[in-house]
């Protein structure tokens, strides 16, 4: 069966793949260099991809640097994630008008544009799967998300190198794309050839490959792809011990480490904006000057704002320690209660894009190093 057999495409083959997607009426989105970062945007040619670029990342640090080869995917993840397309930062949910017949509410028509994502990393596949759980598997379906998601075509790319803040191995989300893609690529520089090993992950992936010139992969090429992924695993510098982490965090709500991290945390919310799983939103209701036309706009929100937990009279989480604790405990612990999975995929974005370099793996390790039970400590009990 061609679906399971691995094949190889050339650089021209990759262009053919992009063209084939465009021919099937997908808007192809992929990595491209913009303003000193690799972001996700519309692409039409392989030349739009960040050839020869890599990213150097550490806590609070992100720089693009030149590679000594012409790799198209020789970097990891930047400030963008695919979340911005499936769960946009701002979208109108509905419009309403008020006339002689009263109020009429009209749902916003979903965009007919199908999206294809090129260059989805394994951690990002995991993040999409997490958001699928949040938006599509609860008692209520997030209809706008589900509409975009059902038509999305995913071209994954396996990581051949680890980024400076990656810890997908700890989160068991990478570096190899195992599921959740239509087609997965591994970039190969082998015997002087620049090629891509292709794995097909779905029927639509197989259908697409019929329009893309490819040849069967040799054992050598398969081994080279495996070696690339193994290289990324071996390079990974950060770890997060997830063993008993949920109970550890939920049992340490009053740990002094929350005060320590609050000393550094600016409560800016960057971590929530770059996180590929953070899903929280608020809504704005507007009306026009006539007062007869209104709309509801949904926007990304962050648990780091005071407004987020506002109930009449004031905010529940006034202290930075409480907001950081909420974010991290939600991500690494409560997510299991709510969605049966971790909310962290180990992509490292929150570490890189934190202006003060707060590292979620270090924060978790600090609590693990000196856990305190909530029960042992004085509490605000009645």
């Amino acid at each position, binding site marked *: 069966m061609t679906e399971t057999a691995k094949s190889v495409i050339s650089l021209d083959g990759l262009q053919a793949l992009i063209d084939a997607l465009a021919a099937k009426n997908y808007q192809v989105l992929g990595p491209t260099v913009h303003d000193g970062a690799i972001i996700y945007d519309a692409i039409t040619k392989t030349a739009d991809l960040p050839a020869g670029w890599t990213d150097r990342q550490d806590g609070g640090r992100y720089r693009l640097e030149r590679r000594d080869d012409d790799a198209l995917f020789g970097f990891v993840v930047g400030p963008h994630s695919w979340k911005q397309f499936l769960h946009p930062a701002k979208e109108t949910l509905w419009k309403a008008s008020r006339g002689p017949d009263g109020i009429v509410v009209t749902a916003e028509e979903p965009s007919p544009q199908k999206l294809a994502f090129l260059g989805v990393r394994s951690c990002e596949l995991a993040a999409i799967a997490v958001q699928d759980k949040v938006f599509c598997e609860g008692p209520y379906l997030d209809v706008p998300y589900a509409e975009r998601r059902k038509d999305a075509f995913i071209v994954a790319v396996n990581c051949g190198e680890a980024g400076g803040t990656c810890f997908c191995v700890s989160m068991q989300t990478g570096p190899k794309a195992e599921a959740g893609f239509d087609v997965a690529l591994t970039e190969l520089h082998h015997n002087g050839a620049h090629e891509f090993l292709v794995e097909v992950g779905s029927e639509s992936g197989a259908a697409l490959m019929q329009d893309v010139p490819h040849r069967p992969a040799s054992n050598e090429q398969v081994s080279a792809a495996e070696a690339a992924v193994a290289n990324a695993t071996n390079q990974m510098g950060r770890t997060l011990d997830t063993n008993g982490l949920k109970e550890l965090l939920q049992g340490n709500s009053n740990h002094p480490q929350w005060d320590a991290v609050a000393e550094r945390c600016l409560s800016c919310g960057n971590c929530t904006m770059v996180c590929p799983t953070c899903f929280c939103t608020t809504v704005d209701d507007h009306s026009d000057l006539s007062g007869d036309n209104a709309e509801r706009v949904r926007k990304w929100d962050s648990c780091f704002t005071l407004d987020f937990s506002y109930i*009449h009279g004031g905010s529940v989480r006034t202290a930075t320690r409480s907001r950081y604790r909420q974010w991290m405990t939600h991500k690494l612990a409560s997510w299991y209660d709510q969605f049966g999975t971790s909310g962290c995929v180990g992509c490292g974005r929150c570490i890189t894009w934190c202006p003060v370099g707060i590292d979620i793996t270090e924060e978790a390790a600090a609590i693990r190093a000196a856990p305190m039970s909530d029960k042992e400590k004085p509490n605000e009990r009645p």
Partner: protein
Amino acid sequence: MKGLEDILREHPFLSGFSPEQSDLIVGCARNHRFNAGQYLFHEGDPADEFFLIRRGKVALEIVAPGKPPIVFATLGEGEIVGASWLVAPHRTMFDARAVELTRAIGIDAACLRGKCDEDHSLGYEMMKAFLPILVQRLNATRLQILDVYGRA
């Protein structure tokens, strides 16, 4: 008709005391009846008696000049009015007014203090009986000052 002794022994306040200790307390007790509007005591009075309410309702009030009296608590059947008798200089800190016909047992404070000074185990039991009531009222006061039903 039940005697004072039987009535007192049935009051929840005495449940923690031994029969011998109850006898000592009964020796300091007398019966009271307060009509609606009648005061059990006024702020600043010597705290020479405290009351175990048998029936009725007692309002505790504080008066500020130029304002109507503020009722900060009401007490009913099975509850105790007055704790200042335990603490020197034994002066009451508020007014206590019967809201409706109230029957109570008064305990002579000087009598009971004397017995507690002589018999420290009686004094200890008395403290154990009073302290939870004081803590409970302190907690209630905390909740009251939070004004939780206010708008903000």
